[in-house]
């Protein structure tokens, strides 16, 4: 196979952010006219690799080839000009503008005209050619998520993209929409174009891709055709042999104690009048971990905050204990103040309720206790939260929320962005909290992770919460509202 057969080829690429090595000599070849799945866990470096290919980042070392020529992108404008398009996980659309305006964004020229009718025709023409139909005059803010994603693809096609990179495109889609997208991608590559699909969904990738590459810790560890690869081998490559023993069955027979958190017929509407929670009743008992799953936007975000006492519902009964720990997903925004010290970040927990003067010496002692007990690696309690690595930040947050033995703990995607070692430490902390009688509610977008730790499962769909067996197939059905 000659290099010219590769639409895209990254060789020995290395990328470092500070002291974090995101890519460590990764190799990635995509054959022209194929659908290539790039697999890996959170933090494996998939997105970084593709941002290099798209010119958003520059590699510290290694080469990038597209269409058989070596490329030195200065910005994504160069990559776009070379026929590469990227659909980001978080859409890059201007909500206040129309579909046609978003498609025309990035055209060059200081005084070149923008004719809405011509732009609308372009959108319609792409729709006619590819089946991706959108109203050119619609405002993006009014479009549902699936349509916004279609717009992202149309944007790339309007720039004559021959190589399309999609970052976790199905994370926000329903199963029907996902199937639609996959069959569209299939037709796209049969026209001679190339697509790269970043995903962590092994089964889907093996079912639809022509080739798969597995990335782990910044290196390509496995590459090949799906029919030549066993699913278990791919999974082993993704999580690595060191971690396989961490995947264990749910601890059976853990006997739940008294009900600690109880919701009765809770409902909630957001600022835009959308129902976020509909008639939700559930309990979390002492000494159990209740797993929560849900496709993005199904109400789990609000449910977790109601459980943690951070959000008051519009209707229904809520019984909460006095002390609830909460570990939100975005720890640098919602859990920690990066510019403050660990002592201050510990005191933050009581900032809302404290009265009178603050006893800093006592907080200092407590912070010291927390970093010792939870093995937080830091130069001291007076170091800034931003100076810690992601894993140590999370251990500190967990330690703070578990300090003084709370009655309940609510955690949301607690292992997001952590490496495998930090992940297993965090999960161990949750298990030991359960063992000491804490009522734990945990949401994770990684279904395998919740299933591995939960005693019971609750699945959110369209604002409703349903009890579901702790079993992958049942949960998967419930996620799509099929049960």
């Amino acid at each position: 196979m000659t290099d010219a057969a590769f639409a895209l080829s990254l060789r020995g690429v290395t990328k470092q952010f500070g002291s974090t090595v995101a890519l460590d000599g990764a190799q990635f070849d995509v054959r022209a006219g194929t659908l290539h799945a790039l697999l890996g866990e959170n933090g494996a470096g998939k997105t970084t690799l593709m941002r290099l290919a798209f010119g958003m980042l520059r590699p510290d070392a290694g080469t990038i080839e597209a269409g058989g020529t070596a490329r030195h992108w200065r910005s994504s404008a160069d990559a776009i000009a070379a026929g590469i398009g990227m659909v980001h996980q978080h859409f890059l659309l201007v909500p206040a503008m129309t579909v046609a305006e978003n498609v025309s964004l990035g055209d060059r020229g200081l005084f070149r005209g923008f004719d809405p009718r011509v732009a609308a025709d372009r959108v319609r023409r792409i729709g006619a050619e590819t089946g991706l139909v959108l109203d050119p005059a619609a405002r993006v803010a009014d479009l549902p998520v699936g349509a916004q994603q279609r717009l992202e693809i149309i944007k790339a096609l309007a720039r004559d993209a021959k190589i399309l990179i999609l970052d976790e495109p199905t994370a926000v889609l329903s199963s029907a929409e996902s199937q639609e997208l996959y069959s569209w991608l299939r037709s796209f590559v049969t026209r001679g174009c190339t697509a790269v699909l970043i995903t962590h969904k092994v089964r889907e990738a093996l079912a639809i891709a022509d080739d798969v590459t597995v990335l782990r810790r910044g290196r390509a560890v496995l590459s090949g055709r799906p029919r030549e690869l066993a699913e278990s081998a791919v999974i082993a490559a993704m999580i690595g042999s060191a971690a396989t023993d961490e995947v264990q069955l749910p601890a059976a027979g853990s006997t739940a104690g008294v009900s600690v958190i109880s919701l009765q017929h809770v409902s909630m509407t957001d600022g835009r009048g959308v129902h976020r929670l509909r008639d939700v009743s559930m309990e979390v008992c002492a000494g159990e971990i209740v797993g929560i799953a849900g496709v993005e936007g199904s109400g789990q975000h609000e449910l977790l905050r109601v459980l943690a006492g951070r959000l008051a519902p519009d209707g229904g009964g809520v019984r909460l204990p006095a002390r609830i720990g909460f570990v939100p997903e975005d720890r640098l925004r919602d859990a920690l103040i990066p510019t403050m010290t660990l002592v201050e970040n510990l005191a933050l927990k009581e900032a809302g309720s404290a009265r009178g003067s603050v006893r800093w010496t006592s907080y200092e002692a407590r912070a010291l206790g927390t970093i010792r007990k939870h093995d937080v690696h830091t130069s001291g309690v007076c170091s800034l939260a931003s100076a810690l690595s992601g894993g140590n930040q999370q251990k500190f947050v967990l330690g703070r929320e578990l300090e003084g033995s709370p009655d309940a703990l609510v955690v949301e995607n607690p292992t997001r962005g952590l490496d495998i070692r930090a992940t297993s430490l965090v999960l161990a902390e949750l298990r030991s909290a359960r063992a000491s009688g804490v009522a734990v509610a945990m949401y994770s977008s990684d279904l395998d992770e919740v299933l591995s730790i939960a005693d019971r499962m609750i699945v959110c769909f369209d604002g409703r919460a349903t009890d579901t067996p702790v079993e992958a197939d049942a949960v998967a059905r419930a996620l799509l509202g099929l049960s």
Partner: protein
Amino acid sequence: MTFLVRLARSQAGASVAATLLALAAVTLVVIAGGYDIGHAATALWNGSVGSPYSFFTGTLLRATPLIIVGLAVAVAFQAGVLNIGAEGQLLAGAATAVAAGLSMAAWPGWISVPVELVAGMAAGAAWAGIAAVLKRRFGVLEVISTLMLNFIALFGVSYLVRGPLQEPTHIYPQTASLAASARLPVIIPGQRLHLGFVAAVVLAIVAWWFIRSTAGGFRIRVVGAGAAAAASAGRVNVDRVVFGAFLASGALAGLGGAVQVTGVTYALFEGISPGYGYTAIAVALLARLNPLAVIVAGIFFGGLEAGGAGMQRDAGVPSGFVSVIEALVVLGVLAVDRARILAGERGQPTTGEQAA
């Protein structure tokens, strides 16, 4: 230069480094302008600290409103409130204090002076309150609303000194002078330095203690440094803290105005503030929003303004250059800060956000 770099690594050092850079730049400007630098420096020295009179009646007298209003800005900025309306709040405070004082001419000073000061604080808080309500209820950017309110206050003062509060002869656009009993007492015989300076220092110490050691002060800091974390992890009522800090900031700025009219001018007129509300931003920033450091920064700027007046008088150097120094100090602090953050980013591990 390595000395400067090392200095800039510490909080206070960054301010000192920025100031040194600014002064160096200004020295160059003064030399380039063809002035005798030795003569100018002597005039600066004489005008600010060279004699008891220039120190107490020049520097410290000018520093008084800068310290009080600088505290107003520092409190607001600590809470993440970009109150650039201290000027308008100061004017509201000054006008109200004068109105109160004029109507209490017959009262003993131990009653009328506190009433004037409290009235000034209330007016400043109320003026800031308009912007605070607009922010809380309608999400209006306080930067724009406080800017509007500065102008409205300016026109309000202009109206008052030509209308309802104009002095009895109706000739000058100013109010009558406050009765001697309704003025802040002078603290050093033969000088014009008044009790307001002592009040400013005490206030700064109280503010420092409050920010550092009380739960309320900690709430202000966490809301300013990370509102989302304060609400989620700390269960802080962010809106209420922001609102409270905004009002407190307005009250302090209003007090600055009240102190100025009861301690220095004894009357209200249009030019009562030569932009104290804006200079105070520079003071607060140079002090890194630390109330104790506001005392130092306020005296430094007070000295510059007093010395600048002296330089214009004795060495012919235009006094506008004081604004240039102030501006360069602000830009210097911003640049040094930025350089420090960038250096920090290079030296520290980033936090795994980019590796998804």
